């Protein structure tokens, strides 16, 4: 099997136990390069724990995670970022007292210093260009000099995504990206994700079913720590178990 045929991400029997509760139970799934994958499921289904084990925030109790053919199960989160796995938080977690520009610069600088091989100095022009590019991609150019904590919530979410983009990910994980966005912001957001997907694989957890069905190439449905169903948006809409467990209520 050549490298191109290996899935970008593959989990095998991934399990996370908290006390007596199995938040994620024996999950095996794979992501193909370039796809947009949506993950849905009721609260407590284990979605955030699952992506936490992929990005390294949470260590699994059992099972393995392979990325680009390499085992990354016990790898530190910062080393995963170096390999291209980037996570944006469910609850907005920007640096609230820094400006929009400074927020994105922290991400851009990580990518650029790694690319140049040392971190003592970084040409300001290069950094500025990378920051401007990421801010422009999410439409926040005008908010660059504002303090992040004073931005409207929806803009803070977009700032998070700009930080993700500045890291030049090969797998971008978004945890409930449309939460808190105004209804009018959702369509531009979907366009942004589609544009981003041209250069990176996307895994996103989402409660807004309309967004998932519209954006995703493939949808994974989770319930009680396990995968309930997986398929194209059309298949998922028709799946009886899904209709009962998730769409029904």
């Amino acid at each position, binding site marked *: 099997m050549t490298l191109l045929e290996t899935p970008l991400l593959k989990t095998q029997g991934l399990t996370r136990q908290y006390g007596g509760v199995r938040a994620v139970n024996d999950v095996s799934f794979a992501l193909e390069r370039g796809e947009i994958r949506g993950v849905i499921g009721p609260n407590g289904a284990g979605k955030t724990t699952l992506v936490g084990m992929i*990005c*390294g*925030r949470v260590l699994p109790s059992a099972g393995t995670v392979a990325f680009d053919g390499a085992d990354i199960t016990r790898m*530190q*989160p*910062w080393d995963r*970022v*170096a390999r291209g796995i*980037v*996570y944006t*938080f469910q609850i907005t*977690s*920007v*640096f*609230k*007292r*820094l400006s929009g520009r*400074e927020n994105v*610069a*922290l*991400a851009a*600088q*990580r*990518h650029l*210093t*790694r690319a140049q091989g040392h*971190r*003592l*100095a*970084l040409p*300001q022009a290069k950094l500025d260009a990378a920051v401007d590019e990421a801010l422009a991609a999410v439409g926040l150019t005008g908010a660059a000099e504002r303090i992040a904590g004073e931005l409207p919530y929806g803009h803070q979410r977009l700032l998070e995504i700009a*930080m993700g983009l500045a*890291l030049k990910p090969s797998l971008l994980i978004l945890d409930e990206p449309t939460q808190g966005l105004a209804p009018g912001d959702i369509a531009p957001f979907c366009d942004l994700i589609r544009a981003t997907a041209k250069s990176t694989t996307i895994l996103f957890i989402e409660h807004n079913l309309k967004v998932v069905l519209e954006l995703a190439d493939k949808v994974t449905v989770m319930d009680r720590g396990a995968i309930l169903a997986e398929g194209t948006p059309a298949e998922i809409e028709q799946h009886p178990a899904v209709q009962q467990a998730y769409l029904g209520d």
Partner: protein
Amino acid sequence: MSGAATRIYAFHLAVIAALFLVQFALPAYHYGNVTRIMLYAVFAIGYNILLGYTGLLSLGHALFFAAGAYGAGLAAHWWGFGPIAALAVGIGAALLVSLVTGAIVYRTTGVAFLIVTLMLAQAAFLSTLYFNTITLGDQGIVLSLPPIALFGASLRLADPMVKYNAALIAFAGALLLSLWLLRSPFGRVLVAIRENEARTRLLGYNTALYRFTALVISGTLSGLAGALYCILFGYVGSSFASLQYSTEPLLWTLLGGAGTALGPLLGAGIMFYLIEFASSTGIEGYMIIVGVALVVITLWFPEGLAGWFRRLKRVRS
């Protein structure tokens, strides 16, 4: 260099130039005071790299100050090292102690960090008393160092001008280093850790390694202050490792403004003269005046004086 960076460096260079020029006008008494204040400021600049930039509150920086002072003092006293060589030994000792301390405490943050640093410093303090055959305990070591030969001139350490300018050189170096550091990619990550460590980790930074490095730089700078203090004033004793020397840089930094480049100088200067003034009143227990003043300043200027100036400037512009 951008316009803003040029302005910032120009401003701080002007402060250094002013400190250089003021020596020709200062009365003898204040001359000696400012010398001490500049050395304290070096100590506090080191401290500020941890507290102000990285958000780590240490209660054990006497450990590093004393490592520098004892490194220099013991080398001069027992091995007969000259001032420059003794200074180098002092800095080396502080670096070594910082590396070892960093390796022990880098896993901790917050209250745990505070306690561990306090304990290590207290252990060092008690060691300076226990090994009193070497350190001469709380009596301390009084040094009489030979002059420094430099470019054909012979610089006597007892000369106030030599003391002043040696302290000024150390201060200028520490100030410019801390400015450069804060504006470097490395410094920006330290600030990010202070603001939100979990997020910083998921931006791809090994934050524990950054905290370790910040502690080593901080400890070594504080040790430089200790080593130079010992050499310029010809004395090192157990008190250098005592709790007082851990709390003072904390107070100077908070008073002047944590996370500001000039805060340490302002804080050290104000507190020095505050204590001078309080003791000159002749009131027994004059430190109560200092205490009240500190409470007032922390209540009304929680960001310290330099932080307050910066905010004023921002509001105006």
